[in-house]
């Protein structure tokens, strides 16, 4: 009696039925659901003790106070500090703790693109400085004059026969405090008043008090929210400012100027901000200097040479600090000595100017090292706070100031410098200290010692100077105005900048730039539909933008709000030039 | 809550009905297998699938009825129509019916599947293949007869013949117990002792019916033998040759046998 096919069938059928009735199927179902919940690649957030820690944001001049929610030592979210004068955080600040994980980071120092020991870099750069000729100069491009670090740079450069401490910032805003709380009208010459200007929190908190007149060609977010939009091409702001001044004296020939003047008369006091010459001219006409609701003098202002005023082809050794590395390279290249110049980038990032640097000195990013936040832009009084590190500083990274001190053979460390700064504040004994944790203000005299002040500051605190007694101040002699580009038959349009994605920001910025369409997508050229049709474009088509010096491949986007005859380019540093666009 | 009860209630009701249906048919099938109704059911299931031309009522041959399809699966024993018509008939007289050159003795009854049954004096019934059937399966590869003592029933399989790749099952004309087995040479294949002692022949053809029936069978045979397009031709001017298969080498023999022996 062999094993027939029938037996086989019986056997399989039986076992199938048996299995179906056993717990096995349920087990399998359960496991599949578990698997679907812990798909490979779903990260498991770290657990640990939840702590609050405080620091100060150094991503922009606003110097906002930061409350960090940490798991163990790892910050998992950042928020503003209640009661801090600069209020809440901006988008970049909210995700500042992601910066450490961005691409393009410099993890160690490079010489000519190759990893190089710090010593080698030091000796190489010292040699370059030593070899500097009499007509040539050594320059440090300071991204933010007025810091203890800036003081370090000054001292170092002062020790050299031909050092220049320069910056690319327009010092107008940095030189005065702005009495935002009492002003009733702001004439902004292209300043992004509602889009990251000064301390966003502070500006927005006062938004309901002032009329906003935006003098700007681009349809920026500020312009789109302004009370009066005056489209004026860059380079002609001063002319318009003059017109407004005349209109204030009763000349009504220019209707736009007249309208502005009208608003200014009915909303006093008023100030002008933005492009320096124009704003300066208007401010003096408005008598905005040194009066409530205007521009206030404050201590601790420290000027630096505008890089634009440095003679061309004169810099032999250029040290570029983080933040300035995003400047258009051709602007800096012009200043460099024709032969054997040396460019040093003191930066955490390998892009921007670092690509042209002979030496890259890898620096830590925000939250990776102890840093400082000097007087916030527009703050009516001088101020100072520390930005304690919330993350361990990775090896092989050197803060720019630290590096310059090494270069200067200074035995002290950067923290020592900061400590001296704090000690100096305590010594002057002016002003109050606002502590983040409890949002209390204490007169500085009540703080026993410089050591205590240092500790308080490390725990998160802001020192605020006393206001200066009112006294007349004057507009500083400021930078020349940019050349107004002139359209030609070949290049009939004007290329101007639209807001563009930040070079280095949290990957979550994709929410703004690619996932929600809230911001102009990168490499977009926004034009008025009329302009578009005149140049044979259609909404959303690919196009080529050309200027005398450059070409960009872009996506054309129509927006009836954009000024006819201009192209708004959403990309890092487009030329302010005449150009044209055509479909490809 | 209530909606849950209603919804799930309906759902499970449906499931129950469906599974019950399945279970029931399984159960019934098992039972049928057990009580040996397989043969009957096989024929029951096969009959409706036969082409209409094979299912015509016997009374259509004799012209007693206009075209009528049998609805009793060729078991005239339960057919009221048949009972009514048969009443008027006289019993078959001896002799034979010469039709289409084939000799059909009238001392026996013929099944639509070309088996014949002849009641014997000793009360047994002899079963064999009629001349047409015989000519289709001359010199078969194999003949599989039921063992003596085996049981066969009307319209069930009587025996199997394998010839030229065709597996032919011959339908039984009688219910009964096999008492002896014969062979082609003997001219008969089975002797059976009918159930209940007496042999019921109401479902079988006899006498005057045979002539028209055979004529019709011949038509079907030639239709099956000859490809559809060309007209059916007779090998020897009317009388079928002894071995039809040999005469039509390119005929699909499986199809021919199925046609004549009523296989689905």
């Amino acid at each position, binding site marked *: 009696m062999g094993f027939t096919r029938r037996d086989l069938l019986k056997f399989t059928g039986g076992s199938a039925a048996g299995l179906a009735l056993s717990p096995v199927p349920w087990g399998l179902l359960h496991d599949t659901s578990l698997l679907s919940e812990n798909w490979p*690649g779903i*990260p498991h*957030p770290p657990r640990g003790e939840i702590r609050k820690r405080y620091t100060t944001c150094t991503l922009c001049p606003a110097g906002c106070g930061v409350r960090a929610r940490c798991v163990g030592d790892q910050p998992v979210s950042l928020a503003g500090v209640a009661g801090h004068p600069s209020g809440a955080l901006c988008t970049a600040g909210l995700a500042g703790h*992601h910066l450490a*994980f961005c691409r393009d980071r410099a993890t160690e120092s490079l010489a000519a693109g190759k990893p190089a020991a710090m010593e080698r870099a030091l000796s190489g750069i010292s040699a370059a400085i030593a070899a500097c000729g009499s007509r040539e100069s050594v320059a440090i491009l300071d991204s933010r004059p007025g810091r203890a670090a800036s003081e370090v740079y000054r001292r170092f450069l002062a020790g050299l026969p031909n050092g220049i401490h320069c910056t690319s910032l327009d010092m107008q805003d940095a030189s005065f405090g702005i009495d935002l709380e009492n002003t009733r009208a702001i004439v902004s010459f292209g300043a992004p008043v509602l889009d990251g200007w000064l301390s966003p929190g502070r500006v927005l*908190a006062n938004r309901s008090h002032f009329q906003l007149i935006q003098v700007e060609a681009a349809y920026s977010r500020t312009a789109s929210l302004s009370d009066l939009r005056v*489209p004026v091409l860059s380079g002609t702001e001063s002319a318009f400012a003059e017109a407004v001044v005349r209109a204030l004296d009763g000349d009504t020939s220019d209707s736009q100027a007249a309208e502005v003047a009208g608003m200014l008369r009915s909303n006093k006091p008023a100030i002008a901000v933005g492009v320096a010459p124009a704003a300066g001219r208007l401010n003096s006409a408005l008598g905005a200097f040194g009066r409530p609701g205007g521009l206030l003098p404050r201590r601790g202002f420290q000027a630096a040479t505008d890089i634009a005023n440095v003679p061309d082809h004169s810099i032999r050794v250029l040290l570029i600090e983080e933040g300035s590395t995003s400047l258009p390279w051709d602007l800096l290249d012009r200043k460099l000595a024709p032969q054997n110049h040396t460019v040093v980038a003191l930066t955490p990032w390998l892009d921007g100017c670092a690509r042209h640097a002979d030496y890259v000195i890898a620096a830590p990013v925000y939250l990776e090292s102890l840093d400082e936040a000097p007087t916030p832009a527009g703050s009516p009084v001088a101020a100072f706070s520390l930005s304690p590190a919330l993350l361990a500083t990775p090896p092989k990274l050197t803060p720019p100031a630290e590096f310059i001190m090494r270069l200067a053979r200074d035995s002290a460390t950067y923290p020592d410098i900061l400590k001296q700064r704090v000690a100096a504040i305590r010594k002057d004994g002016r002003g109050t200290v606002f502590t983040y944790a409890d949002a209390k203000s204490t007169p500085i005299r009540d703080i026993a010692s410089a050591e205590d002040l240092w500790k308080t500051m490390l725990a998160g605190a802001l020192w605020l100077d006393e206001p200066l007694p009112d006294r007349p101040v004057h507009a500083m002699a400021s930078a020349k105005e940019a050349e107004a580009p002139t359209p030609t038959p070949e290049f009939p349009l004007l290329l101007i900048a639209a807001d563009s994605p930040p070079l280095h920001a949290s990957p979550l910025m994709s*929410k703004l730039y690619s*996932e929600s369409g809230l911001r102009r997508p990168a490499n977009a050229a926004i034009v008025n539909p009329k302009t578009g049709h005149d140049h044979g474009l259609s909404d959303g088509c690919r196009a080529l933008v050309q200027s005398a010096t450059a070409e960009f491949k872009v996506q054309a986007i129509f927006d009836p709000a954009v000024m006819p005859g201009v192209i708004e380019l959403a990309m890092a540093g487009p030329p302010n030039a005449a150009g044209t666009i055509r479909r490809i | 809550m209530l909606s849950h009860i209603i919804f799930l209630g309906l759902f499970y009701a449906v499931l129950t009905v469906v599974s019950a249906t399945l279970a029931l048919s399984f159960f019934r099938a098992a039972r049928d297998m057990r009580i040996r109704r397989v043969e009957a059911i096989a024929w029951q299931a096969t009959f409706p699938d036969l082409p209409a031309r094979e299912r015509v009522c016997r009374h259509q041959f004799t012209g007693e009825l206009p075209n009528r399809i049998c609805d009793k699966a060729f078991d005239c024993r339960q057919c009221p129509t048949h009972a009514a018509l048969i009443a008027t008939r006289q019993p078959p007289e001896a002799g034979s019916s010469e039709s289409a050159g084939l000799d059909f003795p009238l001392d026996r009854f013929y099944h639509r599947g070309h088996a014949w049954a002849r009641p014997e004096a000793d009360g047994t019934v002899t079963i064999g293949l009629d001349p047409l059937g015989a000519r289709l399966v001359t010199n078969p590869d194999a003949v599989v007869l039921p063992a003596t003592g085996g049981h066969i029933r009307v319209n069930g399989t009587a025996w199997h013949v394998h010839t030229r790749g065709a597996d032919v099952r011959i339908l039984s004309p009688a219910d009964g117990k096999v008492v002896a087995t014969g062979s082609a040479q003997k001219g008969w294949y089975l002797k059976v002792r009918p159930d209940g002692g007496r042999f019921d022949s109401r479902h079988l053809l006899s006498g005057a019916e045979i002539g028209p029936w055979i004529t019709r069978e011949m038509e079907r045979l030639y239709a099956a033998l000859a490809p559809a397009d060309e007209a059916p031709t007779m090998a020897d001017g009317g009388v079928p040759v002894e071995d039809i298969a040999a005469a039509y080498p390119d005929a699909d023999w499986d199809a021919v046998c199925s046609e004549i022996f009523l296989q689905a």
Partner: protein
Amino acid sequence: MAAPITKPARYGMAIDLDRCTGCGACMIACAVENNVPPARPEATPRTGITWMRVYQISNGAPFPDSRAAFIPVLCQQCGNETPCAAVCPQEAVEVDPATGIVDQMPQRCLGCRYCMAACPYHARYFNWWDPQWPTGMEKTLNPDVAPRMRGVVEKCNFCHGRLHAARARAAAEGRSELRPGEYVPACVEACPAGAIVFGDLDDPASEVARLARDGHSFRILERLGTEPKIYYRTARPWVRQAAAEPARRQESAHA
């Protein structure tokens, strides 16, 4: 963990459109709080995950009179026959009677996306990709919120993690109800303009209830009758006109 919070609430928001500058801080704060991954390079404005999403609208006037307004849209926490909850085939959407919060349970979700079709506010988002963070960035994830797997739907739940934390705190202090402001979602906390006010709509004393009653307030698509709990306010007639009710459109289709 269920803290013994006895007092039920009906949480809602009042968003001041005249204060919103479209900076997007709410979107970033939301993503940080709820472990929403950054977009894949292939992602588009229609495949990205933005529980809190700020739309830009225009008054339609041409240059130079055109002006913009920004409308933050999140799950509107519909309180009446919540469309998404009604259609989910497997109870992955749950309306908590104690808070009025419409909650999505990703680990229960099949990914049929019927709820997305049902939502009039397009406030539900599908995980088209496996969630992915740049190497090392998983360290910055919020431990109170589990990241979602590919193929499920997710949406704003008023920062449920924060509610639990607040309740736990209250329970630890033996309180049976939360103090006003003890529990606010991340977007509310983050808005630099203070445009978003959050609280219990059933508490007449709360600011959100007061704002919801004021004449400048409206709700989007109110006439659908789904009783959303997000109120919007504006003094600008054109903004209200463009945001409250569907108006005649003449835009062309674009993929």
